[in-house]
């Protein structure tokens, strides 16, 4: 399943590595990454492939969001379709 991982937080070394590592251990393949630092606010959007399994998606999304909280990062894991629906005709 194609999903979007968004990460927002105070910039510091290792954020990208932290998120990428979290993906790697769960067998999530990163397809595309864009990131930007504005003043000291880090924002990153990752497009990823999550192995097809619904329970797995719920579990992965919850875990990654909690792990982000612990690091002071706001992480969202959402199905890609929501963005396509809202922003394309």
């Amino acid at each position, binding site marked *: 399943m194609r999903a979007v991982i968004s990460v927002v937080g105070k910039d510091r070394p290792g954020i990208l590595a932290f998120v990428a590592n979290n993906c790697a251990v769960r067998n999530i393949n990163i397809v*595309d990454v864009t990131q930007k630092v504005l003043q000291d606010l880090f924002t990153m959007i990752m497009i990823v492939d999550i192995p097809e399994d*619904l329970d797995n998606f*719920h579990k992965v999304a919850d875990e990654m969001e909690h792990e982000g909280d612990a690091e002071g990062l706001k992480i969202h894991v959402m199905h890609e379709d929501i*963005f396509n629906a*809202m922003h394309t005709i």
Partner: protein
Amino acid sequence: MRTKRRDNILETIRMIDEECLDIRTVTMGISLLDCADTDIDRSCEKIYKKLTEKAKDLVSTARDISREYGIPIINKRISVTPVSLLASVSGGDCVKYAKTLDKAGKDLGVDFIGGFSALVQKGMTEGDRLLIEAIPQALAETDLVCSSVNIGSTKAGINMDAVKLMGETVRRAAELTKDNCCFGAAKLVVFCNSVEDNPFMAGAYHGITEPDCVINVGVSGPGVVRNAVKEAGPEASMNEIAEIIKKTAFKITRMGQLVGMEASRRLNVPFGIVDLSLAPTPAVGDSVAKILEEIGLEECGGPGTTACLAMLNDAVKKGGVMASSNVGGLSGAFIPVSEDAGMIAAAESGTLTIEKLEAMTAVCSVGLDMIIVPGDTSAETLSAIIADEAAIGMINNKTTACRLIPAIGMDAGDHLVFGGLLGEGPVMPVRRTDASVMINRGGRIPSPIHSLKN
């Protein structure tokens, strides 16, 4: 291209996180026509069985979709065939039906169940009469059941006997729940031109022209619209503001369409409609009044309010229509006073009055909604307010409604708190002139000339 996509993604996340964008309700409409039985207990058994079978996966499916797409789905609801139709077959004490619906709703884990309803715009059957008689007790003895009665339409005119009866019923519903913030009246709507596929409570019911089972979705998003208007700044012209609202409504509706289609696919139930209504909540920033103020009014209810609301309502429809394959329900901007922080403030300061709200209802959906009136307001006065509101709907060929809550034991200036989505609000003053002769005439206001279209 990638920057644009990133901005879009961040915009969506901001809408959900900071601007209270959500799916207000996924409502499953279920026909109860095949549950009718001459024995009321048998009829209730069939209803319980059908509801718990059809909607058994509704709550869990909505939860899954919510998690997967990252969109809060606030309420899961059920609407059923107007129960008066079943009462016409069975006769008996309709409170039994309400208790059956309540039990089924609780066992399924839904938030509300609507359809304790009767359509009496042209006249009343014995079943309609039994149902209306049972409304106050039914609402007092159940938690999730919502009731609505349609007393007028552009095609049929206004049934003034029913208007008289509903004034008394609203009062009685409040009296029976006076120890519970008169909550009964908050679950009762009196309609003119009610719609059969409305997913919003308290007025949802599953019309007889609908299929056996259907999924309808209601979106929300006043906070998103307000922020978009704010970003445009005070220099933007009114048509530029209308354009911004249109684009925002498009995005909100697309989200509703996606969730509706997905729920329909997973539950294997046909997709009905997306209701485009901007439904406020008491949460900070989720207010329709604040959109009007953002457009440029010092306070909602002052001069200019009706014009701003007319533009808002129209722009929401225009944006939403292209975003969904099936638009229906009420589709416009809601102005429930106690559910909207901006409306509450404006009513408290005295800028927003019932008379101004009445004017506003002529240009938006739906009507005099969640308005708390003094506890000693007579049944005839309530009926007269209902008749006025129905007249606006009848003549303008639109849905109007009254959800008035007589705050028993309270007077203008006091404050009544419901909590949750229903909010709180000040008791608003009502003019005391007597309309009892007019209300007691009964009969019917004939349908207007423009109903004769054939």
